[in-house]
Structure formats: structure tokens, C-alpha cells
């Protein structure tokens, strides 16, 4: 087990390294001199030269990379070109807001998805199965930004019971029902796709397990329905968990669309603004942090999988 974790850790470090390289390389994809982006074109030459040295743009690429990496590891993600504030602080507070959405959405989506998927599998071929299958596949095929709009139309415009935009005065974590109302629509919207993906995945995995012989053997042994379901779910858990990890990452990274609709000041909107203002340090920092989060989540999922399924550990 320890061997497995160690190997996995090494692998993760390698991947994080790769992620940093890709993120760093991202700005060099921009046509033109990075400096031109940071400064207005009329800037005097001495200013340009001075900034060049200050940012290190005159040094070869790999040295720039290591300098940047050194700063990052120490927590310095650079300074926003637009606001002049350090990226790290703003990013993490924005990230906090996103997590207020992503975590509940994940919980809702996963639990609904698992329930629907399991119920569908155990009622294979019958009406309930078809109903759940329709729900899950709709959840998958729906652009969530559109669903957001529809929900806003239905629940905030046509029948105004929920606020259309904004985060509420509480700032993220709801401290009252008033604030919580702001959460409802975004969370529901975000949970749809995970629900769809998990639902289908659980359904097909459970069906596969049921087609094996051991559930029949359990039944012949006289086990009650509930216990059989528990055993089946335990077997279905590892692949489902892997997908859940992926979905959590998707929620973190893909929240940008929903945040735009609801004007929710999360990391997604943060990044959106950065793109439009060509605020490269912010963009780099956000992508790096979100991707790293994703990698770490996957590591956690792998370890959890190995804990449950002894075959993976080897």
C-alpha cells in the first residue's frame, strides 16, 4: 500500500511539473512580445527596457521558467497587471466563492446521480429505468449555461421567487436563508451535468456487476435485498469514484460559464475578466491553481479507490 502511494505521489509530482510547464508556455503562445501586452504602445523605451529586466524577459526561456517556478512555489503568483494587487490573494478568495458553489453542486449531483443510476439498473428495462435514463441523458446534453438562463427565466422572471444574479450580502457562505437563496439556482445548474454523467456511469457499472454471477449467488445464499445492493455498490464504487473526481475537477474549471450568467464572483469570473483584460499573470495563476487542484483531487480519488478495492493496490 505504501508502495502504491509513493509511486502515485511521484507520478503526481511529475504531472504537476508538466502542468507548470504548459501553463508557463501558455503566454508564449500569444503572438507578439509579452511585454507589449503589459504596456501601452507609447511607453518610453527606457521604461520598456527597465521592465524587461525586471520581469526577466531578456533572459532565455528556461531561466524565466525556473524563476517563475521559484516564485510560484513560494506562493507568489505574480501581480495583476490590471489591478496591481497580488494575484494569490484575490485568486484564493475568488476560489473560495467557487467552492461554495462547486461542493454543494458536487454533493447534489453525485447523490442524485448515484441514486438514479442504481434505481435504473435494478429496474432494468422497466419504465423507471427509461425515466431515469432520459433524465440523465438530458442532464448530459444540456449546456449548463443555457439551463442557467432557463432556470433564471422560470424562477426569477416569470415567477420571481429566487434572485436572478448576484451572490448576496453574506459573501459566499450563506449565513441566512436570504443568502442561501442566491445559492440555489447556480448550484442546481451546476449539478446537472455531474448528475447525468454519474447517473449513466453508475447504471452501466451496476448492470455489469449484476450480470456477473456473484449477486445471484448472494441471493441464493438468502441475503436480503438491501445487503445485496450494498455489496453491489461496493463493487461499483471504484470506477464511480474515479468519475466523481473528474467531475469535481470539471466543476472547478467549468464553473466559469455559470458564474458569468449569475454574476457570481468566483474563480471562473476572475479568469474571464483576466482574459478580456489580457491580464496574463492572473490568467496563468488561475489556470495553474485550478489544474493543480484537479491533479490533487485525482490523487485523492486514486488513493481512496485503492483503499476500497484491494486489487488496485497490488
Amino acid at each position, binding site marked *: 500500500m505504501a508502495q502504491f502511494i509513493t509511486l502515485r505521489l511521484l507520478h503526481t509530482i511529475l504531472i504537476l511539473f508538466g502542468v507548470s510547464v504548459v501553463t508557463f508556455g501558455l503566454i508564449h503562445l500569444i503572438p507578439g512580445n509579452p511585454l507589449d501586452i503589459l504596456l501601452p504602445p507609447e511607453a518610453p523605451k527606457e521604461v520598456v527596457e527597465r521592465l524587461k529586466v525586471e520581469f526577466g524577459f531578456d533572459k532565455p526561456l528556461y531561466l524565466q521558467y525556473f524563476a517563475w517556478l521559484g516564485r510560484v512555489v513560494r506562493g507568489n503568483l505574480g501581480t495583476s497587471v490590471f489591478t496591481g494587487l497580488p494575484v494569490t490573494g484575490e485568486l484564493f478568495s475568488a476560489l473560495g466563492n467557487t467552492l461554495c458553489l462547486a461542493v454543494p453542486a458536487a454533493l447534489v449531483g453525485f447523490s442524485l446521480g448515484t441514486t438514479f443510476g442504481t434505481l435504473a439498473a435494478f429496474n432494468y428495462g422497466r419504465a423507471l429505468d427509461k425515466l431515469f435514463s432520459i433524465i440523465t441523458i438530458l442532464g448530459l446534453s*444540456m449546456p449548463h449555461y443555457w439551463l442557467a438562463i432557463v432556470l433564471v427565466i422560470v424562477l426569477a422572471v416569470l415567477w420571481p421567487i429566487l434572485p436572478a444574479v448576484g451572490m448576496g450580502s453574506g459573501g459566499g457562505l450563506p449565513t441566512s436563508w436570504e443568502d442561501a437563496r442566491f445559492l440555489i439556482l447556480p448550484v442546481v445548474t451546476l449539478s446537472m451535468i455531474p448528475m447525468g454523467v454519474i447517473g449513466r456511469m453508475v447504471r452501466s457499472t451496476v448492470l455489469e456487476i449484476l450480470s456477473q454471477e456473484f449477486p445471484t449467488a448472494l441471493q441464493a445464499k438468502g441475503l436480503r435485498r438491501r445487503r445485496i445492493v450494498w455489496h453491489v455498490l461496493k463493487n461499483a464504487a471504484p470506477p464511480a469514484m474515479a468519475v466523481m473526481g473528474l467531475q469535481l475537477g470539471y466543476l472547478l*474549471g467549468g464553473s466559469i460559464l455559470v458564474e458569468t450568467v449569475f454574476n457570481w464572483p468566483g474563480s471562473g469570473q476572475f479568469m474571464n475578466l483576466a482574459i478580456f483584460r489580457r491580464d496574463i499573470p492572473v490568467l496563468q495563476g488561475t489556470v495553474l491553481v485550478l489544474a493543480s487542484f484537479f491533479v490533487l483531487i485525482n490523487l485523492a480519488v486514486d488513493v481512496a479507490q485503492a483503499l476500497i478495492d484491494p486489487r488496485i493496490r497490488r
Partner: protein
Amino acid sequence: MTEISLVDPALVPEVAAGLEPRGYWQGVGERLLRDRVTLAVAAVLAVIILLAVFAPWVATHDPLQGSVLRRLKPVGTPGYFLGTDETGRDIWSRLVYGARLSLICGITPVLFATMIGGALGLIAGISGRFVNMAVMRVVDVFYAFPSVLLAIAICGVIGAGIGNTILSLSVVFTPPIVRITESLTTQVKNRDFVEAARASAAPLLSIIRHQIVPNVLGGMLVYATSLVSISIILSAGLSFLGLGVTPPNPEWGLMLNALRQAIFVNPIVAALPGVAIVITSLCFNLLSDGLRSAMDIKLPA
């Protein structure tokens, strides 16, 4: 040991003369034709594609021509039966022209990704440990980015426009295809008939072409079709953010964004482009499902 008389196997009843041999793809085709849901879906998709191709004939107005007088007319307005958008352009015409862009942005990246990713996956699957590890680790790094994030980051950096959108999405979709192709190739590679082919001193390319590729293609097709549905949503999402297709081009995601302000005035019209996205994406999803069911023959033990 006594003599065992040899029974003429040609007389075995299950191979009665006259039964046409049924290959794998013929079986798949037959099963697909029996699957009513998939047939319906295929029909809907065909309609959408035809509408897109014949847009100039099907549209009722110029999709780029608007008029302030006709802003945000509701559904059912004579002459503009699906209403008009915020600058007075006919929704139906824009939807129909938008189908072109959305389909192109949906299918093309997957096509590129399948070609490049498929080749890479094949190579990784066939090669020895080092090449395999090298390719798969690089893929892992790209996998470390959630796909939406990666698409947005790339487009954010290289700029908007339909070409950049296709490029960005191709990059996003290549790693998953590499992974699935590699996995399929490795499975097929270890089967007995491939070993028999190796034992026959056949050149590697022949083996890849005749033994490996035909057995990998099915799985890839199913996966690629499901990716198209994601690609349509993602490309529309990029346009929604202003990173994909640029205005005034009619594209469904772009339309959704532009009509956002209109939800208070004319909610139904504002939601229409999304309906188009949902229907198209759903069709590709169901098609992918139908293909998978048709291909999943439980071979007799």
C-alpha cells in the same frame, strides 16, 4: 483405440447452404436498423444537417440584416415565426445559418482529434514500454487540465475566431482519444490471433492494418460520436464567453449570450438557441449510445 469415423462437417446443420455470411459490420447495421430510437435520432440529425446545408434556401431572411424597429418580436410574429433578436434579426434564419457553424465547430475538432489521437494511441499501444510511457505521460499532463479550463485558456491566449476555436478544441479532445485508442490497442494486441499473425512473419504494418485497426475502430467510433455532443456544447460555450465565433456571425452560443439581456423582455426567444444546442447534442449522444449497443454483441461462449 478404435477407428473414429470422420463425420463430414459440411453436413453440420448450422451451416446450411444459402445462409448469407454475416460479417461484424453487417450485424451492426442490422441491429441499428432495428433500433427505433437510434433511427429516429438519425432522422432528426439528418434534418438538422440538411437545414444547415441548404440554409440559404430554408432561411426566410438575411441572418445579418437587422432593424431596430423589429427588435425582440415574440414567437409567432407573421414573417418572423420564431421572433427576432435584440438587433431585429430573424431568429429562424440565424438558427439555420448557425447550424452550419455549430456543426462545423462540433464535428471538425473531433475529426482532427480522432486522426491525430488515434494515430498516437495506436503507436503507443503497439510500441514497447518506453515509447508507451512517454506518450501516455504527456497525455496525462494534458489530462490534468479540466477540459473546459483548457479550452478557455487556449482560446483566451490565442484569441477568438472560428479557426482558433477548432484548434483549441482539437487540442482538448486529443488526449482522451489517445487514451482510449491506446487502451483498445493494448487489449487487441494481446489476443491470440494477433500473436498468430506475428508468428506468420508478416510485416508489422500488415498486422496493424488487417488485425489491429479493424478491431479498434468500433470502440473509437462510439467514443468519437459522444465527443461530438460535448464539442457542440463546448464550442457554443466558448462563443458564449466571447472566445469563440465572433459577432455578427450567427452561432448558437453567441446568440444565447447576446440574448441574455432579453430574458426579461422576451424569455422564450432568449432560450431558443439553447434548445437547438440541446437537441443536436442529445441526438449525438443517443446516436453514440445506439452504436455502442449495436456493437456490443455477446459472442457465444
